[in-house]
C-alpha cells in the first residue's frame, strides 16, 4: 500500500465500528467487555502466559535525576551518581534501592522521540508512534490485550490502576474497538458495581442468578441463539468478576505496605503485584505529578524515593515468585526533561535524549543501552524511538512484529512502526 504521507490523522472510524458491528455474529466471547476473555490469538503463547507491568510516570521523569546522571557538569544538578550492582553503571543517588537491583534491570539511555507536548506525547508514546494510516492506534495495553488475550485468569486482560476516577476506559483501544479498553481501578478501588450489595447474601444472589438463567433458557428455546447467548454471557462474566472481589477489597499485609510504601504509588504498585499474581495480562500503574517546570530538584527529591521504593520492591517480589521470567516490566514517561535548567530552577520537556528502565521476560539483565553526550543534551550512540521499543517489547512477549498484523476490517496494519526494529542488545 502506498504511503499516506498526506492523510491527516482522523480516524477511519467506519472500520472500527464495523469491527464492533460484526461482534454480534461472532461467538459469544466477543461481546462488550466479554471480548476481553477471548482466547489468545497466538496459540504458542498459551503454554506460558506472558504478562506486562507498565509503569507510566506521567509528566516526564528527569533522566538526569534518575537513570542517566551527569554529576558535576553544567546541567547536572545537585545530586550525585552512585554505583550499582553492575560495575560501570551509575545511576542517580535518588535511586538507591533500584541501584542494588541493577543486575536485574535493563535501561536505555538513548531514547530520542519527537513530541514535546504532553497531549501529543502521551498518546504518541503509548501508541508506539505508528505511521499515520488514518486510524487511531491502540495504546500498548489494548494492543497486548488484543494480541495475548486474557489467559485463564477470569479477569479482564487490561487493568489500569490510577489515582482519580475509575471505570471502563474505552479510549485506549483505538480501532481495535471498545472491548479492548482498560478496566480502571480508580484510586486502586474496585470497579463500580462490582461488589454484591450488602443487603444480598451470597446464597440469595446464587438463587436469583439461577432464576435468571432459567428465564433465559425458556426465552432462548424458541429464538435465534446469538442475542441470548451474548446477553447471558456478560452476566456470567460479571459473576466471575464478582467472585474475585477479594482481590480488590482484601487487606494488604502490613509488611508489604512497609516495603512498597504507604503512599499512593506504593499502594497502587502493591495492588498491581496482586493482580499480576492473579494472572492479569497487562497492568498499567500511573504516577502523576512529574512535570517539574519549577523547582525540579526538590520535586524529584520528593518523587523519586517513592518510585524507587515501590519499583525495587516490585522487582524483588516478581523475582522471588519466579514471575520475572514471564512478566515484562517497563517504567517510562512521555519524554525526559531538558538538561538546561530554566529560570524557575526547573527542567522543561525534552524528547531528544532520555531514558527508560525495563526488566524481565527474557530481556538481557544488567545493561545500559546507548549513551548521551557529556552534558546529556543529545544521544551519542544510535538513537531509539518509541517504535524500536514496541518492536523490542513485542519480541520479548513472543510476538513477532514483522509477521503479526492487525486486520482492521480488511486493512492490514503493522503492530509496530515499520521503519523501526527491535533493539538487538536487549534481547536474548
Amino acid at each position: 500500500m502506498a504511503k499516506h504521507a498526506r492523510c491527516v490523522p482522523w480516524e477511519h472510524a467506519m472500520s472500527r465500528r464495523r469491527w464492533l458491528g460484526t461482534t454480534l455474529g461472532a461467538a459469544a466471547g466477543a461481546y462488550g467487555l466479554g471480548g476481553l476473555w477471548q482466547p489468545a490469538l497466538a496459540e504458542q503463547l498459551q503454554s506460558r502466559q506472558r504478562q506486562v507491568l507498565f509503569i507510566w510516570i506521567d509528566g516526564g521523569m528527569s533522566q538526569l535525576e534518575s537513570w542517566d546522571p551527569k554529576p558535576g557538569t553544567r546541567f547536572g544538578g545537585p545530586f550525585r551518581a552512585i554505583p550499582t550492582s553492575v560495575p560501570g553503571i551509575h545511576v542517580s543517588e535518588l535511586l538507591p534501592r533500584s541501584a542494588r537491583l541493577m543486575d536485574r534491570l535493563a535501561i536505555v539511555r538513548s531514547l530520542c522521540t519527537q513530541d514535546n507536548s504532553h497531549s501529543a506525547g502521551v498518546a504518541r508514546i503509548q501508541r508506539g508512534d505508528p505511521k499515520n494510516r488514518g486510524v487511531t492506534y491502540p495504546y500498548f495495553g489494548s494492543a497486548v490485550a488484543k494480541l495475548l488475550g486474557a489467559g485463564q485468569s477470569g479477569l479482564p486482560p487490561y487493568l489500569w490502576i490510577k489515582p482519580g476516577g475509575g471505570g471502563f476506559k474505552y479510549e485506549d483501544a483505538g480501532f481495535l474497538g471498545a472491548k479492548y479498553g482498560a478496566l480502571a481501578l480508580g484510586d486502586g478501588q474496585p470497579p463500580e458495581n462490582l461488589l454484591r450489595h450488602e443487603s444480598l447474601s451470597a446464597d440469595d444472589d446464587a438463587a436469583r442468578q439461577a432464576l435468571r438463567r432459567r428465564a433465559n433458557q425458556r426465552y432462548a428455546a424458541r429464538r435465534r441463539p446469538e442475542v441470548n447467548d451474548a446477553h447471558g454471557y456478560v452476566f456470567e462474566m460479571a459473576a466471575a468478576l464478582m467472585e474475585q472481589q477479594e482481590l480488590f477489597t482484601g487487606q494488604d499485609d502490613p509488611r508489604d505496605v512497609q516495603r512498597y510504601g504507604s503512599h499512593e504509588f506504593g499502594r497502587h504498585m502493591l495492588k498491581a503485584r496482586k493482580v499480576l499474581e492473579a494472572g492479569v495480562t497487562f497492568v498499567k500503574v500511573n504516577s502523576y505529578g512529574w512535570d517539574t517546570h519549577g523547582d525540579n530538584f526538590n520535586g524529584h527529591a520528593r518523587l523519586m524515593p517513592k518510585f524507587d521504593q515501590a519499583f525495587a520492591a516490585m522487582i524483588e517480589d516478581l523475582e522471588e515468585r519466579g514471575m520475572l521470567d514471564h512478566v515484562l516490566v517497563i517504567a517510562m514517561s512521555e519524554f525526559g526533561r531538558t538538561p538546561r535548567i530554566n529560570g524557575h530552577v526547573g527542567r522543561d520537556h525534552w524528547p531528544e535524549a532520555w531514558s527508560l528502565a525495563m526488566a524481565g521476560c527474557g530481556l538481557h539483565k544488567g545493561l545500559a543501552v546507548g549513551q548521551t553526550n557529556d552534558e546529556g543534551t543529545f544521544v551519542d550512540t544510535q538513537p531509539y524511538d518509541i517504535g524500536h521499543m514496541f518492536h523490542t517489547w513485542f519480541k520479548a512477549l513472543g510476538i513477532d512484529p514483522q509477521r503479526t498484523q492487525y486486520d482492521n476490517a480488511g486493512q492490514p496494519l503493522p503492530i509496530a512502526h515499520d521503519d523501526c526494529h527491535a533493539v538487538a542488545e536487549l534481547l536474548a
Partner: protein
Amino acid sequence: MLLAVLTLPNVALWADQPLHPRIDALIAAAADGPLAAPADDSEFLRRLSLDLLGRIPSSQEVRDFLADTAPDKRRQAIDRLLASDESSRHLAQAFDVMLMERLGEHEEWSRYLAESFRQNKPWDQMVREMLFPDASSESLRGAGFFLSKRLENYGQNPVDMPGLVRDVGRLLLGIDVQCAQCHDHLFVDDYKQADYQGLFAYLGHTFVRTDVQFPAVGENLVEKKVEFSSVFEQQPMATGPRLPGGRELEIPVFSKDEAFEVPPDRKTRTPGVPRFRPLQLLAEELPRADNRLFVRNVVNRLWWLMLGRGLVHPLDLHHSDNPPSHPELLDLLADEFVAHQFDVRWLMRELALTEAYQRSSVLPEGADVPPADRFQVALEKPLSAEQILASLRVATGHEPPASPSTEKQADAEGVALRKTFQAALAAQPREPEVEIRPSVQAALFLSNNSLILKWLQPGEGTLISRLDKLKDPAQVADELYLSVLGRMPTDEERQETREYLASRPERRVEALGHLAWALLTSTEFCVNH
C-alpha cells in the same frame, strides 16, 4: 414457492392500495422459507409500546389490551400511541441518539426535537432547520446543535472537521465518505475523494459562535474552491460545494466591501453574515425530494428503527456493492414518503401495520434460522439506556422519569437518573447504537447497583407491594409476568414462582424481589423482541 410467484406484486397496479400490504407483498415475494406466526397480543403490544413510547406497557395496559375484543384493536393501539405526547417525547429521544450519537446534550436542542415531533414536522423541513439554523427564532435555533456540537473542540483535540463532514454524509445521506478524504475510497468504488471534498466545501468554513449562549454556527467568507489531491496520484484538483451525485455550485466573486451582507462587529464579537453562504445552499440542496440519497437514507433509518435492520445495512453504507436487501421495497418507501410530504409518523404507522412488523420473534417450528435480511421472523432490537430506565421504572411500579425537554420545570432526580443510566448502558460518544451490544459493565450495573434494588422494595404502589398483597401464588406469577415481561406466565413459570415462594416462607418480600430481579435482568426484558 408457488405462493410467492402468485403474490409477486406489480407495484404500479397497486398504487391506490395503502402502503403496508404492498410492503408485505414484496417481503413475501423475496422470502426464503416459512414466515413466523403473527406475534400474539402481548408480544405485539410490548414491541409497539417500546417502539412508539420508549417503554414497556404497564400491567394494566396489558390487561386492558388482552381483554379488548375489537377486531381492529391493533390498529387502534397504533393510532392511539402515535397520537400521544409520550410518543413525541420518545421520537425526540430516539432521533437525538441517532443524530448526536451521544456527543452531548443541549436543552434547546432537546426542546427543538420535542416540539418538532409534537408538530410532526416533515423530515425535510427538520433537516433544513438543522443545516441552516435560524438564530433569530427562539423555537428553531436549537436545531443548530447538530452542527455546532460537532464544531467544538473535543477534549484536547481541535475541531474534527472531517468528522462533521462524515456525519452529515452518514446521518443525512447514508454514505460514509470519511475514508475518501485523502484518496478515492479503497474498498467502496462509489465513494470518491471529490464527493468528500465537495461536501467539505459546504462545511469547511463554518465555526461555533461564541457570542451567544444558544447553539449557533457562523460562516466565514468563502472565496475560492477547495483544493485537494489524492495522496496516491498527487494530481491537483479543486471543487466548489457539491453534493455527491449533484452539481457543483459556483462561488461568486464580490469586491471587498460587498463580501458581507452584515459585516462582523469586533466590539460585540458578532460574526459577520457573508453574502455567499454555503450552509444556506446546503439546506436548500440536500433535503430535497429529488435527492435520492437523502430520501433513501431516512426511510432506511425508519425501517431499521421499526424492523431492527436496515434494508441497506450498515445504515451508512449505501453504495452499489452493498445493495438493498429489497431494492423495490426501498424505492417504494422512498417514493411514498415523498408523496406523503416526508411525514415521519405516517411512515411509522404504515410500518407498524405491516405483517412483517407484527410477526413473532419466535422461530417457526422445524425451520432453519432464516437470514436476518429476509424479515421472515421479527428481529430482536436493542433497548437504549433511556428505554431500559423507563421500562424498569414502569415494571417496578414507579413513574418513568420526565423527558429532557420538560426537565426545566421538574425533576432534578430524573436528570440524575438518566445520566446514571446513560453512563452505565449507553454507547460511547460517536458509536452508533444500532446493534444489540451487551457489556459486562451493564451486567454489573443491573446486578449490583443500589437503585434497582431500591425499586424492588415495598412501597406505595410498587410492584413488590402489589405482589405481596396477593395471596395466591398463581396470581403473584400473573401480576409479576404482566408487569415485567408484558405477558401471562406459562404453567411452568407459575410453578416456578410458587416453588420459589414456598422455599422462603419467612422472607416473602425478599423472595419476590429475587423473582422480579431475575426477570428484569433476563434477555426477554433487556431486548425489544
